[in-house]
């Protein structure tokens, strides 16, 4: 058996892994990444100079950086030290949840598209479009209302505006893909630039806040922002926004698993030919999934404006791109996105804690973060890869024969001569003929 065959078998096993196995694999990957990261921290610690009493000692050797402290800060620091007895909802934990909330939406946005067989790189652009629209829409509407009741009206209104504009912006590459056969990866990347560019043009010109030097819109009044409930508000986190996010997780899960639309989306993503056979309108499904994906990205933008900044400013952090990682980490499962967004949120907020608490250079923390994401995402990534490969052995069984070794013909169906589906028949028919006392 060649190395390629062994690799193929491993991929096939991965593709067939059950949900429990996948959770175990991901957990093992997390532990492994911490071990590898710890080794890196130790090595880096040997390569710098520090005084003897600053150093920590393992195996009788002195190291300048202590991996235990680094990972303690990275994880427990991000959670606001729940074991330290000084935990406060207003501390680092709120930062973690803020990041988590935003990543929930961008992660869901990418995950939905993935499930429909679409690679939406444009979540970032849809987020920018949604954020700008929310800042302008809510800013305009806040002139008409005020007081406590205004929050109840304006916050959902802002989310709705963000979702609508993000959704429309997402529908553009959807329509281009469905009706003009334009590759969505290329169109969404281009539309990201367009969103950023147009937003910059607008906020540096016609919508610029005259009282600010920065390129930003007029700040929203306090009552037009997410209320900070329980969490003090210094860290720009709102429990209400997180609840919105959790509702979105559950809602998207419900839509995908329990509605006819979700069935159409999943069928289209899993096997477009079968979806067509089953009466799914492929074009409409693509446009609708893209619009919904864009709407989720747009909501992330609305959250960013109404929870974090209170205004639209150019240079929105790359939550949209992080959403791709979150989605892959989650295996494109909405429920998984909840967990993956939290892990990602912890890592993002933990990074700053590590930098405060230790001398470890920020670049090294970045490497640790990258290692963890890489390790946890890789099994899922390979799983996606294995499922996408033509001629998966265990699952599609006979299809392996159909691909002509991958070298011979690009398209097994066109050649007509595929041992695949018909090969199975060949076997069956032989069995029948034997029972009947031979063929002709």
């Amino acid at each position: 058996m060649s190395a390629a065959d062994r690799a193929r078998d491993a991929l096939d096993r991965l593709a067939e892994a059950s949900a429990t196995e996948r959770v175990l694999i991901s957990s093992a990957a997390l532990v492994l990444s911490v071990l590898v990261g710890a080794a890196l921290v130790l090595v880096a610690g040997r390569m710098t100079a520090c005084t003897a009493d600053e150093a920590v000692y393992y195996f009788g050797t002195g190291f300048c950086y202590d991996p235990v402290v680094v990972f303690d800060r990275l994880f427990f620091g991000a959670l606001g030290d729940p074991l330290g007895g000084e935990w406060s909802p207003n501390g680092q934990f709120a930062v973690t949840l803020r990041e988590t909330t935003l990543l929930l939406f961008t992660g869901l946005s990418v995950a939905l598209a993935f499930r429909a067989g679409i690679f939406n790189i444009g979540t970032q652009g849809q987020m920018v479009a949604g954020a700008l629209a929310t800042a302008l829409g809510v800013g305009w509407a806040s002139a008409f209302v005020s007081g406590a009741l205004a929050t109840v009206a304006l916050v959902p209104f802002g989310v709705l505006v963000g979702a609508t504009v993000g959704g429309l912006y997402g529908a553009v590459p959807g329509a281009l893909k469905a009706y003009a056969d334009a590759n969505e990866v290329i169109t969404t990347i281009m539309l990201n630039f367009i969103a950023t560019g147009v937003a910059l043009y607008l906020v540096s010109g016609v919508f610029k806040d005259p009282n600010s030097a920065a390129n930003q819109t007029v700040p929203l009044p306090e009552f037009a922002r997410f209320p900070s409930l329980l969490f003090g508000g210094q860290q720009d986190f709102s429990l209400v926004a997180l609840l919105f996010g959790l509702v979105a997780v559950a809602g998207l899960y419900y839509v995908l698993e329990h509605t006819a639309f979700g069935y159409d989306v999943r069928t289209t993503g899993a096997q477009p030919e079968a979806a067509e056979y089953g009466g799914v309108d492929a074009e409409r499904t693509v446009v609708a999934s893209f619009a919904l994906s864009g709407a989720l990205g747009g909501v992330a933008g609305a959250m960013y404006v109404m929870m974090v900044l209170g205004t639209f400013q150019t240079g929105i952090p790359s939550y949209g791109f992080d959403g791709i990682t979150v989605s892959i980490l989650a295996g494109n499962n909405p429920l998984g996105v909840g967990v993956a967004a939290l892990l990602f949120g912890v890592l993002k907020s933990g990074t700053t804690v590590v930098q405060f608490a230790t001398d470890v250079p920020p670049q090294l923390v970045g490497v640790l973060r990258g290692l963890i994401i890489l390790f946890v995402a890789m099994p899922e990534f390979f799983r996606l890869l294995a499922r996408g490969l033509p001629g998966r052995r265990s699952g599609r069984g006979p299809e392996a024969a159909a691909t002509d070794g991958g070298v011979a013909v690009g398209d097994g169906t066109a050649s007509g001569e595929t041992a695949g589906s018909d090969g199975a028949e060949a076997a069956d028919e032989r069995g029948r003929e034997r029972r009947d006392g031979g063929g002709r």
Partner: protein
Amino acid sequence: MVSAVHLDGITKRFPGVVANDDVDLEVERGTVHALLGENGAGKTTLMNVLYGLYEPTSGTVRIDGESRAFDSPRDAIDAGIGMIHQHFMLVDPMTVTENVTLGSEPRKWGGLAVDRAAAREAVVDLAARYGFDVDPDARIEDVSVGEQQRVEILKALYRGADTLILDEPTAVLTPREVTELFTVLSELTAQGKTVIFITHKLGEAMQAADEITVLRDGRKVGTVDAAATAREELAELMVGREVLLDVDREPAETGDVVAAVSDIVVDDDRGVRAVDGVSFAVRAGEVFGIAGVDGNGQTELVEALTGLRVPDGGSVRFRGEDVTDASRRERIDAGMAYVPEDRQERGLVLGFDLVENGLLGSQRDPEFGSNGRIDWPATRDHAEAIIEEYDVRPPDADAGAASLSGGNQQKFIVGRELERDPALVVASHPTRGVDVGSIEFIHERLLELRRRGVAVVLVSSKLEEVQGLSDRLAVAYEGEFVDVVDPGETTEERLGLLMAGERPGDGGGEGGSDRTDRDTPAGALDDADGERP
């Protein structure tokens, strides 16, 4: 004399499938050998074994009498074997010379640079030697498909091939190019090269080959001398005869016309005309059979009828309405059930379990949900009922569709489609790969539907099946119906002749002259289209 290629007892198994079962093949040096068989007969698998892409499960490959084991195509090429795939492996923006020599260019300056002059000369010499008409400086993207194929052949010859394998070489060619190709093949064999070509067109095999080996269901059913065989013999060998299944059926009590196709014209994926002006109507309580060797337009005809392919002319009527432009969804909702030919591509979502697959096509049916919500318990009951009734194994609705054997997948699809309570059932090869007991069961279900006044269109390449079940039987050949017969009044011999393209009233002996009809390029037919009233 030692054979150029001698495959001895080749068996190739894939998990759960035997693609080649103890196949022998002997090809004499300097001859053209055709490998003839239906789709899925194992022709390409066998040649991939010879070309080193697959390692045989058992059996030996002998080249010029010497036993060889190929790990990769590289080994096969070193042993003098070249393969020309159906889809050309050429670099479009590069010239003919560059493509031919790619990867083994003549070198100069101690191997640092490509010796373009020498490369060009080598290509010109090679082309002249075999009488090829190619321009060494033309870019691939600028030359015709026929010339591209010659470039592929040159590529193999340049690498020292003595034996050339051509996979369905005529599929992409115009009739004139086919003639040219056959001239090239005879020139090659005249100079001592050996040619094996894969085809499912028996006319071509007879025209171009010296010997023909027929494969069916992964086994060799015979090798015949091309000059001494007849088309109907080949057709019989290809399709085979299985034990006649007894089917009890009473005369048809037909009602109104349920579906009617008139003058339909359909192109295949390559834009080649696959169905050319077919008309038929099927009534309630009637089974309309379509027989024929695979690849004579049946697939495209059925897809146009069921809404998976847009016809290029003609119309489809269903229950009195013109549905030519109706979507697949509309046709399903109007009561059209379809057992597709390709169960793994179309009929099932392999990544879904059987509960989810039982819903395919009915996801908006009020029986399985309302207001866009899916009623999963009802869907599960439905899937379990199909599994029980159609004896799908393992009897587990949570099993992934991919984990089922082909026959059980088929039973599940047939069950799902027949339980739709349709007005029309279009069944393409409904019993392919299904065990005997289930075949009878499926046949009975089809006849029961017929009794209940459902119209059935049955496409099958199994003669007994279409003959036994149909009330009227059309024979498809090269995109047309050569005849529509009463299956009770006809003989298998007669059907064999029709399937080989002999028209009613013909004295036979058409030879390969009509073979090229179907290969007429789309462009030429577009012109004809203009004249169509």
